[in-house]
């Protein structure tokens, strides 16, 4: 288990470090003059303001000096100020972060429950029309664009039926965005569960369980499901990362007050300090939570806990 954890921890550290480099030097890669592009949309920016921003971003120095300037500021908790409004970036993002986390984790729970149920029944009813219907619905789930699904749900359940608010905060407003975000991943988890369950159903210990005369529910839940869920649970970290990514689009549709809406606006306005802050916070959060989920998984799986390396 130690070697597994060490390796995971090493990758996490490496990722965060690479992110700081990529983010610090992001403005260098912009074709043209980044300062002019940044201020193109804010009329009346003075020459002094532009020069101040250039110095602030370290664009007047060489690459190495720029990186250490940026890193030094980061370590002091200074993520810079936005071009428009001149607000400090970090508090702006941190204020939105909980909303995004809330959305992504709710969607992950919905996707896992729906996906596992779906995949389990598809495997259990192998070769029947039930499996066909369920598997066809997963292909649909993967094919439908989340942004379109969101708009349709909003139109039907928000406008026509009026069951859920069209925008806002709180758990009532969370339902439609979370379902939209969960749909694709429910389909993916469903397919994963099905193939894993199909393998489990053919195992020796399943025949033993049946022949012992255990009740059907015990065999299916205690023996089959527990074994079949291993690959699903081990993919939780990856699934969470995808939820965070998908949240960006879903937040935009539902005017959800999260990090994603902020990021899309920042990219459209080419507000580089804000974009830099977003990328950094986003990847640190994704890396930390994926790491946490992997550690929990490793602690639960005896094969990893007792010294094996996956």
């Amino acid at each position: 288990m130690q070697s597994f954890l060490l390796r995971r921890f090493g990758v996490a550290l490496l990722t965060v470090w690479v992110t700081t480099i990529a983010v610090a030097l992001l403005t260098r890669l912009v074709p043209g003059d980044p300062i002019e592009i940044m201020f193109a949309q804010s009329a009346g920016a003075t020459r002094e303001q532009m020069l101040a921003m250039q110095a602030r971003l370290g664009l007047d120095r060489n690459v190495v000096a720029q990186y250490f300037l940026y890193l030094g500021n980061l370590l002091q908790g200074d993520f810079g100020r936005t071009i428009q409004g001149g607000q400090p970036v970090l508090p702006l993002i941190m204020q939105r972060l909980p909303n995004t986390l809330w959305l992504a984790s709710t969607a992950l729970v919905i996707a896992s429950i729906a996906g596992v149920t779906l995949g389990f029944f598809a495997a259990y009813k192998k070769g029947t029309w039930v499996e066909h219907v369920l598997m066809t619905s997963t292909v649909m789930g993967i094919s439908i664009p989340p942004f379109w699904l969101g708009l349709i749900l909003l139109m039907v359940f928000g406008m026509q039926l009026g069951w859920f608010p069209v925008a806002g905060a709180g758990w009532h407003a969370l339902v439609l965005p979370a379902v939209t975000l969960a749909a694709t991943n429910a389909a993916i988890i469903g397919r994963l569960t099905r193939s894993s369950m199909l393998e489990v159903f053919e195992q020796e210990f399943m025949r033993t369980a049946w022949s012992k005369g255990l009740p059907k529910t015990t065999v299916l839940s205690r023996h089959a499901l527990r074994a079949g869920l291993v690959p699903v649970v081990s993919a939780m970290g990856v699934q969470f990362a995808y939820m965070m990514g998908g949240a960006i689009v879903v937040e935009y549709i539902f005017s959800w007050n999260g990090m994603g809406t902020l990021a899309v606006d920042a990219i459209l306005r080419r507000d580089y300090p804000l974009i830099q802050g977003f990328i950094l916070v986003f990847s640190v959060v994704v890396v930390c939570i994926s790491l946490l989920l992997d550690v929990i998984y490793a602690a639960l799986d005896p094969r990893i806990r007792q010294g094996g390396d996956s």
Partner: protein
Amino acid sequence: MTHFPLTSTLKSSPGTLGRSVLVAIYRKPTVFLGALLILAALAAALFAPYLAPYDPEAFAVGPVLSAPQPGYWFGTDEFGRDMVSRIIWGARETLLVGLLAVSISLGFGLTFGLLAAYLGGWIEKLFMRMLDVLFSFTEILIALACVAILGPSLINATIAVGIAGIPVYGRMTYSLVLVERNKPYIESCRAMGAGHVRIILRHLIPNITPSLIVVGTIGISTAILAASGLSFLGLGAQPPSSEWGAVLAGARDYFSTAPWLLLFPGLAITLVVLGFNLLGDGVRQMLDPKQNK
């Protein structure tokens, strides 16, 4: 991300891949449907000037915000543009974006993955660490960062989606080459004095090509979803483009007054993506008996 992973190198050569596709279309109704959807989109893309009744960007060819009616079967938008024409022309941009993005991902992914697996040593180690890092970034963040650097436009969104897909195809190629590299026929090639370049070009690449084509077909659907998503956010195709994601973004403002504007572009994306998924997955299942127990 591809949602239909391969378990091994597909048992097929480039020559038999074509035949397998035909057999799959003939045997499985879902694959047939997939091929039909792709053909329809291709026909729309290729013959758009002849099929579309109006200029897709011309204003006031019909009434403003009209519901579907004879003559304007999908309705008209806020500028009186014909939605049928816009959807038909949009097929061109949407398919092109998908193909181009996958070509970028596949081209770079193939090169990196193949070199890492074939050469081994520190190159392989470096490649694996890079993959670890890139996978924890998630594709959407990579794509967003690329658009942030390059600026919003359809071609930049295509490049961004292409770059974001490189790790997926890199890892795919890497694992495929790893399996092939240790097979006896490669060893006998080497024993007969074949050089690295010959082994890679004449033996390794042809043998992993069918697998990559199948994965790439499914990958087109992911690329189309990602690129139209960027356009929907305003980070890809810009008005007056008839790229489907951009059309959908414009329709969002007429959400309650003209819901048909939302219906058709979304449906178009769904059907094309479904087509690539059904065709790719059907062929994969046929060539990959391991998954089909």
